[in-house]
């Protein structure tokens, strides 16, 4: 079924390193996955595991000069983005691939009008010439901002956090992108607003038929919206599974730990479950499985050699020695 027609984005062995005074930080280390048309991928993991750097790498926006994509391929519609010029990338950003940042209050420029900021992707990608104002009002309506005609000439500080995130989503979808990357789109918002934003993302997905990568550490959110889940740990993807399989039958000890860590309403527990230990430093990581030091099922080989990717079922892959031949 994985024909190239359906494949929108493919990462092959992506490596993004940061060259610091202390040494090389391997923030994204040999990451491969595909995103098909219309899919909603959940990229799940703890803070600092390389999720955001993966998405910034896709847009070729890794903070330079410290950060650098040192290897791999990013195939978007079968074209390697790593071979594009900066100007070609600019034309893709906000147009074919767009991204929503975590905190809308700081992602919007406080000194520029909402309308201006909303109009920029349209303006710089040659969409809606001459009727930009109407297009912006229409966008605000689509993301359910009330009285868009007046709000278009207001400033971000006159908007609430949830409203700002709606504007950011509006900017993200204004050019009807093929791929929308949402980096923790609800983390900075109230719980009640989170649900609204999630519904909005679902609607937007249906309306524009975009593929979405949602970066989150919130498994409940991933369960609600994603079709597939990728678990990232210390710069590597350790498990890939369809969402249902993941929640019912996750294979990697780390994934199991993550799922067990989610508190369930109504269940009385003495102490909330947590995975022992801390994620490893990405500075000069070990040759073995990076989760091994925290893993209760770790074997001798886990510390010595990185596990191969094992196929467990349809679309379910895990990188763990428990399932592999030594």
């Amino acid at each position, binding site marked *: 079924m994985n024909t190239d027609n359906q494949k929108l984005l493919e990462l092959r062995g992506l490596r993004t390193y940061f060259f610091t005074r202390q040494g090389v930080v391997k923030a994204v280390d040999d990451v491969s996955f595909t995103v098909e048309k219309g899919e909603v991928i959940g990229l799940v993991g703890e803070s600092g595991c390389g999720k955001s750097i993966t998405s910034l790498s896709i847009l070729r926006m890794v903070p330079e000069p410290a950060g650098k994509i040192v290897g791999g391929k990013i195939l978007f519609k079968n074209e390697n983005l790593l071979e594009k010029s900066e100007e070609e990338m600019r*034309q893709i950003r906000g147009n074919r691939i767009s991204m929503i*940042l975590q905190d809308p209050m700081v992602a919007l420029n406080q000194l520029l009008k909402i309308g201006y900021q909303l109009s*920029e992707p349209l303006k710089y990608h040659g969409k809606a010439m001459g009727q930009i104002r109407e297009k912006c009002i229409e966008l605000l309506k689509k993301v359910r901002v009330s009285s868009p005609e007046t709000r278009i000439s207001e400033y971000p500080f006159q908007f609430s956090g949830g409203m700002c995130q709606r504007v950011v989503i509006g900017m993200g979808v204004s050019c009807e992108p093929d791929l929308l990357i949402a980096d923790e789109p609800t983390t900075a918002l109230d719980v009640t607003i989170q649900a609204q934003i999630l519904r909005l993302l679902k609607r937007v997905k249906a309306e524009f038929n975009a593929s979405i990568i949602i970066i989150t550490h919130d498994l409940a959110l991933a369960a609600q919206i994603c079709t597939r889940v990728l678990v990232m740990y210390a710069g590597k993807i350790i498990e890939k599974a369809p969402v249902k399989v993941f929640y019912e039958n996750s294979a990697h000890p780390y994934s199991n730990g993550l799922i067990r860590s989610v508190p369930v309403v109504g269940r009385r527990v003495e102490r909330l479950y947590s995975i022992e230990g801390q994620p490893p430093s990405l500075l000069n990581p070990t040759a073995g499985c990076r989760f091994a030091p925290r893993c209760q099922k770790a074997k001798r080989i886990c510390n010595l050699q990185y596990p191969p990717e094992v196929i467990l079922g349809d679309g379910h892959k895990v990188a763990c020695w428990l399932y592999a031949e030594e």
Partner: protein
Amino acid sequence: MQKYIFKRIVQSVVTIFLIVVIVFFLVRLTGDPLAMIVPPDAEEADVQILKKKFGLDQPILLQLLVFLKSAARGDFGESFKWQEPALELVLSRFPATLELAVSAMLIATIFGLSIGIVSALKQDSVYDRVGKTFSLLGQATPSFWLGVMLMLFFGVKLDWLPVSGRGSLLHLILPATTISLISLASIARLTRSSMIDALKSEYVVMARIKGVPQHVVVLIHALKNASIPILTLMSMQFSYLIAGTVVVETIFSWPGTGRLAIQALLARDFPVVQAFVLFASFIYTAVNLIVDVLYALIDPRIRYQ
């Protein structure tokens, strides 16, 4: 917005009034002006006549009242030294100073902003290092030395530019360059650091994610946010250029207010000193007022308060 401007105007008027009163007392602390005018062997009766003429025989508070009353009408009395109305004397010298200050400010702004922006964009590159070294040297070079060196090189050795006096645009180049250097260097340094902060911020990342071209990201998204501290510095620098050009005006024989003020001060010519200080503080508060309005124009959060 109108309320904001009105409030700032009222504050400016109060500030000027207070400055005038303070200066009135301060100049009188410097000593008796008659000692400078009257020959040492003059008759006591003549001294008394002069005292009466200048109103110096009155109690000091009464002198203040008289001074304020006539000052309100624009009359600052007559210069003890030059026997001309004090304010007119200051005003007649002002165009020269303004010309110098504005040209210096233009040079400082254009080059300071450019050097700062390029340094911030190419952080730690060769451009950045050259820019940083230049800024450091610029802030550390005394203007009397630089002025003389420029004169020596461009005026004497190469014989390209006139070295003194006021006249054509060519006369302006050396003194304006000399006094602009310190402002230029400080603007460059502040622009560099403000731009580095702005370029790292989330809204700049967001703008780039949207596919906004680099020059728009830099000049609209980042520079606008970085501009408030830069504007503050520029207003301070401009006031300094208006009131603090004494050295350069002297070196280049530039007929401006700075030289006049020093001459008046040395002669204890109270009316001229008072008129000068009032005028300088007027310019100072006016610049501040303009900058406050600019802040509000740039930052809507100030405007909508």
